[in-house]
């Protein structure tokens, strides 16, 4: 894909997000939630953190080639790329480490370098994009699927309901790690395959939730009024019931994003995660296992990747909880 086209995609996503939030802000439910959120300092900090990560990911998604033969370099690459060293070096050190003869370093590395000499801070920043891409793409795949099946099952009931319940019972009873592993073994490694596999294993929760909510709304007066006016089922589902499901969906997606990002690390250990060429925190954490066993101990790789992962997941968890409390404290189930 030519660089110009592929640069438009992240900008389009950003535009869609801003537009969506702006439109939602006009509805009383979301305006009230926003007012409550503003008072919660933890939630604001988490939102800022998520924004920072998102910004870094955005910087990494936009780039271009300097000339026909030059490699593709993103904005993040141009800002933060540091010269490659020979091998490991400690943070802020002047010489390499873990080598028979130590060599002086070409430049300062804030968080040290890894086995092939790449700057650890740079690798960590590059991992932001992979993590957010993984979470975002998987949610994009899983959410419409789960919503569609859940709403159909809740609204039409009987046969459709039985069928959908059967499908998700079968999927839910397979242990998720094993299902993930089976899917990845069959599809092979790759970011898209990982997103599909994670989507398949995570849609059941949202499906159950949307089915329950649709059941609650199906017999409300406004739905009966719409039927009496002669509106078709499809229109009622999309224009009347779906907007009422949105709060629950958004909370579930936000909290689910943290689980998705965490799952990537586990899959990398099983050699089923993102391919090693693409920078990701899971790969860094997996590589750290052997590094910790060396003399001298190489700890900065693990610390950097796991801290970055931890802060993002914590931000999603805190923001998701705060969002749920802001929208409707009655939704608290845990």
């Amino acid at each position, binding site marked *: 894909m030519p660089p110009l086209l592929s640069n438009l995609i992240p900008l389009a996503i950003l535009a869609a997000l801003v537009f969506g939030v702006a439109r939602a802000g006009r509805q009383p439910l979301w305006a009230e939630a926003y007012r409550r959120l503003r008072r919660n300092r933890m939630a604001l900090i988490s939102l800022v953190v998520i924004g920072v990560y998102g910004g870094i990911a955005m910087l990494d998604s936009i780039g271009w080639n300097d000339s026909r033969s030059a490699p593709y370099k993103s904005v993040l690459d141009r800002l933060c790329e540091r010269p490659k060293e020979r091998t490991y070096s400690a943070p802020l050190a002047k010489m390499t480490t873990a080598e028979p003869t130590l060599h002086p370093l070409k430049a300062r590395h804030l968080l040290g370098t890894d086995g092939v000499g790449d700057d650890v801070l740079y690798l960590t920043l590059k991992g932001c994009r992979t993590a957010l891409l993984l979470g975002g793409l998987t949610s994009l795949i899983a959410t419409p699927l789960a919503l569609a099946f859940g709403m159909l099952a809740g609204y039409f009931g009987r046969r459709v309901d039985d069928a959908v319940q059967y499908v998700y019972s*079968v999927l839910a009873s*397979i*242990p998720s790690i*094993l299902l993930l592993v089976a899917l990845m*073994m069959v599809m092979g490694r790759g970011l898209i395959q990982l997103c599909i596999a994670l989507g398949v294993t995570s849609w059941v929760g949202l499906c159950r939730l949307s089915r329950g909510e649709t059941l609650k709304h199906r017999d409300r007066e406004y739905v009966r009024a719409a039927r009496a006016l002669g509106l078709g089922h499809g229109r009622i589902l999309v224009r009347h019931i779906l907007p009422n499901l949105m709060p629950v969906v958004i909370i579930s997606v936000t909290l689910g994003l943290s689980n998705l990002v965490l799952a990537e*690390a586990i899959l990398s250990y099983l050699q089923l995660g993102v391919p090693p060429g693409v920078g990701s925190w899971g790969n860094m*954490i997996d590589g750290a296992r052997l590094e910790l066993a060396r003399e001298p101990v190489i700890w900065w790789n693990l610390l950097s990747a*796991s801290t970055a992962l931890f802060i993002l997941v*914590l931000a999603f968890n805190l923001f998701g909880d705060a969002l749920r409390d802001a929208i409707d404290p009655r939704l608290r189930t845990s």
Partner: protein
Amino acid sequence: MLSYIIRRLLYAIPILVGVSLATFVLFYAVTPPEQIARKNISAKNPTPEQLKTWLKEHGYDRPLPEQFKKHMTEVMLFKFGKSDATGEQIWTIIGERWKPSFMVASLVFFAGLLTEVSFAVFVAYFRGTYIDIWGTFLFVLLMSISYMVYLIAGQFLLGKVLKYWPLAGFQEGLTGWKFVMMPMVVGVISGLGYGVRLYRTFVLEEIGQDYVRTARAKGVPEQQVLFRHVLKNAAIPMLTSVVSVLPTLLMGSLLLESFFGIPGLGGMTVDAINSQDFAIVRAMVFLGSFLYIIGLILTDISYALVDPRVRLE
């Protein structure tokens, strides 16, 4: 009650059929058997005869509908066949390896349960105070750390830095206790955040009830209120979440066993994944689903037994 159990077991059968159908589609139909044969025959460039004999041995050479029928009948009868990689009977392997899995998994689970319930009651006792607020925040923190980081950092800190226990390995019998300690500690701490949050919800739900207010009004000391009244009632949802997990203890945790060198079913699955041994992965998927469904049935039954308000229809 008996009719309910029978009905649930009967309903589980179509689900199991669905699971074996899914595994069949995943494994047989998408990967051609020649690929599997090539991976598992030790010779570098197997001759067509070698391929044929291997395929025949493992039953991959029949036409697809016949393989499907064979797969379904075998799996429903729990005949898992031979491993693709080593050629051993899978049931023999399971027979050897389930005991370490069960031992470690039960230890981790029950030690975890005890710790989590204690913390939950402690935090609920001090609800509304700074202990509660900071405690809840601490547990959200613990929940946000990746499981892999717990495993790696735990093994490093406890084994290499502090040198409390051996890094990995396993020994049968009581003398092998020191091999089990590290997986237990790491397993308990990694589950702490999630578990305490869950149990704290149950306890808080009970504390808000009227009967607790009555007990306090009657002058019952707070300790007794908590332990004698609240805990007993909070134990109902706790029990159901415990019982649903019990059958899966047989399978063992994949990552824990693989990290700490415990020769259990989880470690076997991880090895099978790494060596692309589809037969074992298929068998474990089915076994896992079966145990999970049994767990669900046990949960419903225990709920009916423990809570007199619940009637099973």
